[in-house]
């Protein structure tokens, strides 16, 4: 059974159609790149999967269920923004995650944090923006979730931090889980992807495996993306 299913999914903000009758299945065990330019509908799709938005039409299912309390327990979400309260210390945040998520692996999180030299007593407000993003990613990837939804995990960080983030994702996700990475920085994530979804104007333009793009079309994902989203 697909871990994420969209059936005729539409979302409209006033007169703006953010998603238009999207049909999509994502199977477990796949790393999927949700690729598209800014404003293409990537974040809207991810927010709908998290229950942060309600569909205007159609439905989105996580493991066969509409987003709700049950699905939130199996989805690990990294938003674009820093959502951690800046007065909290790392220890308080670890306690918070441990209290609410039964699949949170505290030891794994502590190991990753110490690797970065982040002490448990350190407060979020004492950290740089990049470090905050890394802490947030560590928390998200320390869950044994069935579905990881990562919204622009490498947007706005330097190349060295990008490598760290991508290595953290690859090194920590459960192979039986699905990972959806939304980004427009394709060259950086291309090597880790199994499948790609090209999205623009709220429509799914292409959903295919990376091998197919490379073998049958003889192109890299980045080259194909540039070709399809060429600005005239």
């Amino acid at each position, binding site marked *: 059974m697909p871990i994420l299913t969209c059936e005729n999914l539409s979302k409209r903000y006033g007169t703006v159609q953010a998603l238009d009758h999207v049909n999509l299945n994502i199977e477990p065990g796949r790393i999927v790149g949700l690729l598209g330019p800014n404003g293409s509908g990537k974040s809207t799709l991810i927010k709908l999967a998290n229950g942060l938005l309600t569909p205007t039409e159609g439905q989105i299912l996580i493991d066969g269920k509409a987003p709700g309390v049950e699905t*939130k327990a199996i989805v690990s979400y990294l938003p674009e923004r820093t959502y*951690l309260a800046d*007065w909290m210390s790392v220890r308080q945040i670890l306690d918070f995650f441990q209290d*609410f998520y039964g699949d949170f692996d505290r030891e794994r999180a502590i190991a990753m944090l110490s690797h970065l030299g982040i002490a448990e007593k350190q407060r979020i407000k004492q950290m740089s923006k990049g470090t905050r993003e890394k802490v947030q990613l560590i928390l998200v990837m320390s869950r044994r979730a069935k579905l990881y939804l990562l919204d622009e995990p490498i947007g706005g960080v330097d190349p060295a931090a990008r490598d760290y983030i991508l290595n953290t994702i690859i090194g920590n996700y459960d192979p039986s889980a699905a990972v959806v990475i939304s980004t427009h920085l394709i060259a950086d994530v291309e090597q880790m992807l199994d499948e790609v979804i090209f999205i623009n104007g709220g429509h799914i333009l292409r959903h295919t495996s990376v091998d197919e793009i490379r073998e049958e079309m003889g192109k890299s994902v980045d080259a194909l993306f540039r070709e399809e989203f060429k600005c005239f």
Partner: protein
Amino acid sequence: MFLKLVKHESHAAARAMVPLLGGLLAMAILARGSIWMMESVESPVTSMLGVFLVSIFFLACGAMVVTTTILMMVRFAKSVHGDEGYLTHTLPVSVSTILLSRLLVSFLAVLLSFGAVYAGVRIATLGVDSIESLGVSFRVIIENSGIETKSILLKLCCVGVLSILSMILMIYAAISIGHSFPTGKTGKSVLFFFVLYIAAQIITSIALVGVLTAEYGFDGLRTIETNDFPSSLFWFTVGQSVLFGSVYYFLTWITTKKRLNLA
């Protein structure tokens, strides 16, 4: 999960509340000290300083509940409709659980602020003869008036609790509706607070006149005995708070569930 939310929310609220409560109690001690100084040292300087400190303390008492309310508003807006909302709304808990946990913590914070004001006033006036004799006189008047003090206090507490809950829910509803718009969220929250407040006042006034007219008739309204009022008003206020509170809760719930609009 509800208790876990309450635990973490209390922790967040305590960060802001503890310095506030501590500050008020410290000011109460200063005020008591200055009263003692005024009583024991007769000098224009000590008198002026004493009056100044006592005035500041009573101003702080007035500001305490207002500040607490503002802190709770900011906390709700940030944790439910601000960036922290990305975490709050992806926890495996329902919207109702989130809202009720916030409501409980805000209510306790307001109660605590009332408690701190009471404790502060008691500290500041401890052993001041004129204040203590005023208290004794008040008790004598109550006892001699034949009013059932316990019953009235119980009713007042009940009305107080329901009114505070209803007021908090009105603030939550205004914030939630205001934040469902794409722009000017804070301004629209303030606007909807006034809309809800004025609407509540108009409906309450009409309903109150209607209830009293139905009970006493138009002519009877002029001749109602004052002893009849507390009982009628009590049930009216209870009903009004429960009804409005439920409407505000529903507005908050539906807006947060169906029209959540995190930036």
